[in-house]
């Protein structure tokens, strides 16, 4: 009797297909998405508060009768508004993807819809990617700061 052997050729597609979203995994992903939504909403609210504080908040610690101090406080206020606007714009942009991840993933998991779930994970990928790129940019500034600091130190000595 001839034994038929099936060829064991695994493609990446087969590789992924062996992983299933079972009930336990779906529960974990749903909870992760729900907490991500909580975090994103808190972040949106936090940015709104930061904007309100920047525009309408009093700066009691700078309310000196000294004219020089008043001029400084006006410059400081403008800088505070500008930094709040930039921080809010960047933060809302980043957390929007986290919020989309949460919404799409819960929707996909509840409907057992792979396409919507993938869309949700795609938003998570974008969220992490933007964070990563921002960190790389920040690290570049740190390195440049170090280089300029060393050069300034060498030129003084």
């Amino acid at each position, binding site marked *: 009797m001839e034994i038929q052997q099936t060829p064991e050729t695994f493609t990446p597609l087969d*590789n992924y297909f062996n*992983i299933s979203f079972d009930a336990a995994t779906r529960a974990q992903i749903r909870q992760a998405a729900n*907490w991500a939504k909580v*975090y994103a909403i808190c972040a949106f609210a936090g940015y709104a508060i930061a904007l309100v504080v920047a525009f309408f908040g009093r700066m009691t610690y700078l309310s000196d009768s000294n004219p020089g101090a008043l001029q400084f406080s006006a410059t400081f206020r403008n800088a505070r508004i500008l930094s709040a606007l930039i921080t809010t714009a960047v933060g809302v942009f980043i957390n929007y993807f986290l919020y989309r991840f949460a919404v799409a993933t819960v929707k996909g998991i509840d409907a057992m819809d*792979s396409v919507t779930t993938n869309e949700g994970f*795609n938003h998570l990928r974008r969220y992490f990617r933007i964070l*990563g790129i921002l960190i790389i940019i920040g*690290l570049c500034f740190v390195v440049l700061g170090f280089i300029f600091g060393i050069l300034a130190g060498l030129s003084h000595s």
Partner: protein
Amino acid sequence: MENDQQESLIQMHLDYDGGHILRETVRWSRFLSIVGIVGLSLCLLVLALAGTAMFAAFSRLAPGIEGLGDLAGGLLLVLLLVFFAIFGLLVYMLYRFSVLTRKGIDHQDQTVFAEGMKCLKTYFLVCGILGVLSLLANLFALTKLF
């Protein structure tokens, strides 16, 4: 047996697109976690080397704290330890998510993949709790400001 087969057919599977997206997600999350681990380690190193000088500078900024003596130092140390513990947990969970999910996909291991997703849940759980706490602190500061 028949029920198991039916359940297996009904279950959602990770398709090619999903696997590809998750692979890239874990790549970026691993980068973020490694940067976080290095950053935290550097902070700990700076604290260990220049902790006394930093505390002296902090005392100059907040003069009232000097009156507390050793208690202020202990309080500051506890606060820093809590900070490092929370952010250490965050970056560790992110790292475990990236490593376990990648391993689960590569080795076709359902258990390891589920463990990775559990770490993602813990990561967002800690993030969510921190988000709620910081929102409450912001609201409290808002009431003080106006």
